[in-house]
């Protein structure tokens, strides 16, 4: 066990920080034109993603030919932490960078890599993930959007829901059923569908706060025709890719969720003295203890992440990773809740219409109450907290199925 990093990793950190200082977009530049959803890349974001890619800093763990520099896992950790500390996004299309591009690089054809994956890495295109469906909820195996192979093209009909960023994305990495007669999880494939293909229609689903910046969408497919060459990987092998996609997401998500939590905690600690000064001593001590409790949680999430990381580095399985989504999302939620409670009466005021954060239109610009409500996106999507608990109970603790 060690707390400090060794010298070579610290050297990597300095190299990156120096480059970052010289090349990063300014907070003003980002705030002037924030991304409107996770499918949107404003001009500065496109430039910045491209700049990182060209310098080998977009995905440093990858080989140079894919825009990386073969950075070690520890170096990648340092890189991600410093990016977060600098308050700069790697991409405003995180599912594109984190899930879609790597999946296409792993499973796709050279043409797909050239037309979809590399453009994401170069900040030229954005993608969205078509997974959830009405009625199927979190149960991907129950999806019913059909893609029928008809000669050299697919004809697609169906509906997706909760599709992040579809209202701005250029294309969709679409999970659909290609063999309705096969067992539920066996007849699923992935097809790439450009959003401007005739028959695709996107209906934004504004959220319960900041409805002026919708992030989620319903996406309807009516007799949508795409070339058979848009099939990613093998026909009916989508289930394996779904697990691959989610693994990509999980591998990426723990550091960013820890860092996001850290940033929220910093904001809370900055704001807390102002809130506390309005309270009487008895109230203040209780409120301060609530804040301190969140601080403990935040540090615990980080340490738990580091422990899981340590196990992964040794090639072991890391049950801590399975806890990370649950713990970090619930901590984030509790943080918004406690912040709004301690803030008191002022917490009922909403952020001004059109308030914009430094690189996302919402989130940082939201009030604590709004952040609390928005945090349910974290505990509901990508496997709700209830599903996470079922998974941990059965897969990690070995409890029998119900």
């Amino acid at each position, binding site marked *: 066990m060690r707390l400090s990093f060794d010298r070579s990793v610290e050297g990597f950190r300095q190299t990156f920080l120096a480059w970052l200082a010289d090349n990063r977009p300014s907070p003003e530049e980002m705030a002037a034109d924030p991304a409107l959803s996770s499918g949107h890349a404003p001009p500065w974001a496109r430039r910045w993603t491209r700049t990182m890619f060209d310098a080998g800093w977009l995905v440093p763990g990858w080989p140079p030919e894919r825009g990386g520099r073969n950075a070690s896992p520890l170096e990648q950790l340092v890189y991600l932490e410093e990016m977060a500390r600098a308050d700069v996004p790697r991409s405003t299309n995180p599912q594109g960078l984190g899930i879609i591009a790597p999946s296409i690089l792993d499973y796709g054809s050279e043409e797909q890599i050239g037309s979809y994956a590399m453009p994401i890495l170069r900040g030229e295109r954005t993608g969205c993930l078509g997974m*959830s469906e009405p009625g199927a*909820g*979190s*149960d991907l195996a129950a999806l019913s959007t059909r893609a029928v192979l008809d000669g050299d093209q697919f004809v697609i009909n169906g509906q997706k*829901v*909760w599709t992040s960023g579809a209202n701005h994305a250029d294309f969709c990495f679409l999970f659909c059923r290609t063999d309705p007669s096969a067992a539920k999880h066996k007849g699923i494939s992935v097809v790439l569908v450009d959003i401007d293909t005739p028959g695709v229609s996107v209906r934004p*689903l*504004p*959220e*319960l*706060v900041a*409805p002026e910046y919708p992030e*989620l969408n319903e996406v309807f497919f009516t007799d949508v025709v795409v070339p058979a060459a848009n099939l990613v990987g093998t026909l009916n092998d989508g289930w394996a890719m779904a697990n691959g996609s989610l693994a990509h997401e999980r591998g990426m998500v723990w550091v960013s969720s820890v860092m996001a939590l850290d940033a929220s905690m910093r904001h809370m600690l900055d704001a807390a003295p102002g809130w506390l000064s*309005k*309270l*009487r*001593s*008895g*109230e203040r001590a*209780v*409120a301060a203890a609530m804040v301190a409790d969140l601080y403990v949680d935040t540090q615990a999430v980080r340490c738990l992440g580091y422990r899981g990381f340590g196990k992964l580095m040794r090639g072991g399985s890391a049950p801590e990773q399975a806890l990370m989504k649950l713990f970090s999302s619930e901590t984030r*939620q509790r943080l918004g*809740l406690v912040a*709004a*409670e*301690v*803030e*008191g*009466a*002022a*917490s*009922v*005021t*909403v952020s*001004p*219409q059109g308030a914009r954060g430094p690189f996302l239109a919402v989130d940082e610009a939201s*009030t604590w*109450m*709004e952040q609390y*409500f928005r945090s*349910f*996106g974290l*505990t*509901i*999507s990508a496997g*709700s*907290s*209830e599903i996470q*608990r079922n998974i941990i109970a059965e897969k990690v603790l070995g409890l029998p199925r*119900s």
Partner: protein
Amino acid sequence: MDFELTNDQQELRDAVRAVLATACPPSMVRQVYESKADDGASRAAPLWRQMVQLDWPALTIPEPFGGLGLGYVELAVVVEELGRAVAPTPFVSTATQFVPMVRQAGTSEQQDTFLRPVAEAGSTGTLALAEDDGRWEAASVATTARPVGDSWVLDGKKSFVFDGATADEVAVVARQEGTSGDEGLGVFVVAQASLTSRPADVIDPSQPLAEVLLDNVAVPADRMLVAPGDPRAVETINRAIQEATAAIAIGMTGTCRAIFEITLQYAKDREQYGRPIGSFQALKHRLVDMYLAVERATSLAYFAALTIAEDDERRGLAVAMAKAAAGDCQRLVVQDGLQLHGGVGFTWEHDLHFYLKRAKSANALFGSALMQRAAIVSRLGLVLDEPAGSEAP
């Protein structure tokens, strides 16, 4: 001793519920949510007119001044139902904040002047107490009242005033210049036209709040309810605050019950993995805990209502407990209600968020659970070193 509604009270509840079911469905709340602020008030106006016709605002106004002269339990029944429907209406500000202050503090002439229009013509009123620091207690008031001849001149800024931009009359708590704490407090009724109000942009537009600016506002002597320096001022003001605070707590329990009922129904209807999600044991147990929280809060809300109705000596403690329990309740039912709905409840299109926002917002107003708990600590004598002059209302 009877903690169950009488037949008359039960009938009142049924009547109110029936009216609101048609006059205040979620679609009406949505119209208010999706309107501009001024427009929202006008959309809510027909509901208020209907309530006036049904004599609800007159409920606790004494009969000599045109009211029905009923007690606090009847008021509680109406307020709970309004909370259950997230009703956008000036009822809460008028009947639970303005009326009690005038009733507690006003002379017969003043009660006739200010309450009769409420009872007979649906005039509205509110209470301007809290200021920038968001504390609903007399001791924290900084707004000043300065005698000038026969009149008084008010100066200050009030925040989080319920319906403060629309209420016809505003009861303002102010203090003589140079006083602090519980000294020098007075209450004045100021007409909307005499002050400047600024609507706040709030998370729950079905309950509008406003800043009220008092910039050298002259108030004639007949609009002075409590003279600054009156030794009974604090007691009078605190009693009115207790009635107002209890009403918020009672409304919250109604809202929380609605969240619970909506979520319970959803758990029965919504299927996942081929069975209703309400058949999953973990969800069942959470619904039971929500139910318990709602019952706990409701029990304490009506206990507070009873202590007010019968002027029991425990009323201060009972009100603090009711508001604290309502706050605990909303914390749980908002959390689990939203989580159990999954993505659907997360959308603007679903009605759930009206209830969630009302519950959250009401917790923050008139003293949060955090503050109420500190007040309970103080009332139980558990404070060993509290500075003087900070008695909770």
